[in-house]
């Protein structure tokens, strides 16, 4: 199984762990991630304004590159996934965005949202299958109680993201079960960590994150997993009460598949 892969800026810098463990684990599972050449930063937040076109173009370029290779586009960072998937939706359904982006880019073949955008977790669930993942596990994480932190970007708006039930998601808990650990369900798992407000208002992010970590701890979690470098940062560096270890889900995947050391 081969995918075009879009890493995004943070996975090459502060969020390297998210990527390294993902690539190593994918190899074990027979999945090849072919990084797109010359990808550009997605901008990290989806430009909601209907009359904003330029900030959507980097996503369109990635989508076109995957289409031209005849591959689905695999994402890993929650924010990149969110932005690229929503821009793809605009390219398919918003004629204004579609027309202006195509006018500007003057592609040989116009782009109208043909590429399938798939997040790494969706790839595990829908292409590899959690049953097959379970079979590939050599080091089941028995007895480890893990709280999945979904945050916002993967789930909402569910009409476009179509990732899972936005109010009661299960994909990360199913992933946790597949690697042999015990999922801990807690009320704040899909509530915002504060995101970008951390740039100018740490206290605000801290308030959000303390509530999340306290909620996870009260439900008995040993650790929290995430797919987003900004959630990771807030839950780790901006939490002051009831801190728990925060890991990328790919690190635990690599651990269960026996390749955690190789990836370092």
């Amino acid at each position, binding site marked *: 199984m081969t995918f075009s892969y879009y890493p995004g800026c943070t996975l090459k810098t502060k969020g390297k762990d998210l990527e390294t463990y993902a690539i190593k684990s994918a190899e074990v599972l027979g999945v090849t991630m072919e990084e797109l050449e010359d990808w550009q930063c997605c901008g990290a937040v989806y430009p*909601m304004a209907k009359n904003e076109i330029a900030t959507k173009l980097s996503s369109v370029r990635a989508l076109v590159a995957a289409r031209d290779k005849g591959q689905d586009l695999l994402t890993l960072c929650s924010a990149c996934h969110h932005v690229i998937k929503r821009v793809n939706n605009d390219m398919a359904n918003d004629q204004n965005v579609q027309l202006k982006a195509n006018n500007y880019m003057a592609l040989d073949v116009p782009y109208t949202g043909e590429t399938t955008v798939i997040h790494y977790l969706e790839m595990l669930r829908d292409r590899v299958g959690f049953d097959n993942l379970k079979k590939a596990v050599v080091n089941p994480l028995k007895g480890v109680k893990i709280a999945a932190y979904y945050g916002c970007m993967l789930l909402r708006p569910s009409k476009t993201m179509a990732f899972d039930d936005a109010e009661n998601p299960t994909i990360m808990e199913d992933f946790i079960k597949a690697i042999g650990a015990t999922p801990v369900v807690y009320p704040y798992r899909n509530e915002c960590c504060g995101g970008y407000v951390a740039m*100018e208002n740490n206290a605000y992010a801290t308030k959000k994150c303390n509530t999340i970590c306290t909620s996870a701890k009260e439900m008995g979690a040993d650790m929290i997993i995430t797919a987003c*470098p900004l959630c990771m*940062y807030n839950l780790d560096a901006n939490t002051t009460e009831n801190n728990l270890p925060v890991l990328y889900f790919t690190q635990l995947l690599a651990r269960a598949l026996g390749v955690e050391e190789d990836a370092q």
Partner: protein
Amino acid sequence: MSHNKETLREIVIETAGINPRKCMKCGKCSGACPAYDEMEYHPHQFVSMVEAGKIEELMNSEAIYMCLSCFACVERCPRGVEPASFIEAARLALIRQSGKNHLKAEEIPAKLNDKLPQQAIVSAFRKYSK
């Protein structure tokens, strides 16, 4: 409504791409909002104030920087109104003007730390500056 006020209202509605009159004032958006306590105008008020043409009040509010773009209001709205899109549109009406950026490049070095991911800087810039 004065000419200017009406134009501003039209621009915000065009930017959001939604008719605020679709709102049935149920308050579900504000009930879902994790930023509620930090905002002097709440998500449902953004919708009704845009409808009423009170755009300058929204542009001058702190609330436009407190919204987390978490899309809980968008998810829960039974009428497809997207309060977050009106908040974005009000912020853009302000920061699309020269000199009105909320976050300036010169301020960044002092905010950096070892763990801060690039994603935080990029997203804050996209939200607060043009």
